[in-house]
C-alpha cells in the first residue's frame, strides 16, 4: 500500500537555526499538507499546497515558514529561524480529491526539538 514518508524522523536544532523537513507524498496525489502537533496538544493545520502554490494557510504559518516542491516527488517545509515554541511533531499529508471525498494520508511525522 502506498504511503507518505518523512525524513528525518527526529531533528534536533539550536534556536535560530534553519531546518528543512522533507516529505515524499503518495505519487498520484496532487494535494499536499503540513500539520503540527505540540506534545499533548491537538493536531494543527499549517498549510496546503496544490498546483505548485499555497492554497490555504493558517495563522501559525507566518513568514518564518515556507513550503516547496523542488522536484516531482519531494515536498518540503522550511522554518527559517527556529524558536523554542516550534518544537513539535510535524506531519506531512497528501490526498487526491474526488468531489467531497478528501481522505488525507499522513506520514509518520518528524519530531522537531529546538534547544
Amino acid at each position: 500500500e502506498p504511503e507518505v514518508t518523512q525524513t528525518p524522523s527526529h531533528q534536533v536544532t539550536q534556536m535560530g537555526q534553519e531546518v528543512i523537513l522533507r516529505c515524499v507524498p503518495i505519487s498520484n496525489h496532487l494535494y499536499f499538507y503540513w500539520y503540527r502537533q505540540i506534545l499533548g496538544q491537538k493536531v494543527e493545520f499549517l498549510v496546503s499546497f496544490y498546483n505548485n502554490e499555497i492554497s490555504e494557510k493558517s495563522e501559525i504559518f507566518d513568514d518564518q515558514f515556507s513550503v516547496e516542491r523542488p522536484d516531482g516527488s519531494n515536498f518540503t517545509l522550511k522554518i527559517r529561524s527556529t524558536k523554542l515554541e516550534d518544537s513539535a511533531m510535524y506531519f506531512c499529508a497528501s490526498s487526491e480529491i474526488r468531489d467531497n471525498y478528501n481522505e488525507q494520508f499522513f506520514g509518520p511525522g518528524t519530531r522537531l526539538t529546538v534547544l
Partner: protein
Amino acid sequence: LAKTTQPISMDSYEGQEVNITCSHNNIATNDYITWYQQFPSQGPRFIIQGYKTKVTNEVASLFIPADRKSSTLSLPRVSLSDTAVYYCLVVNSNSGYALNFGKGTSLLVTP
C-alpha cells in the same frame, strides 16, 4: 464549519462494541462527517466518512441520523490495539481542504 463536540475519553474492555458520539449542531448542507484515528507518536489515519444514514467499511460503521446534528462512530469488538484518539471532523470542500482537529476522544481498551 460546524463545531464538533465529543467525549474527552472513553474506556472499554476487549471484545466490546464501542460507540463514540459526536455532536455537530450547526452542520451545513454541504458538510460531510469524517473520523480519523491517531495512535501515540503517529499521524492521524482516516477511518470513515459519511453524509447521512449509515456507512460501513472493514474498520467501522458511521451512523448519521436524519437531522445530521450528530453522528456515532461504532467500532465492533474492539481489541487492545484500538486504543487511540478518535477525532470527529466536519469537512466541506467548498471551505477548503484543511482538517480542523479538535481534542478528540481518547479511547482506552483494557483486557
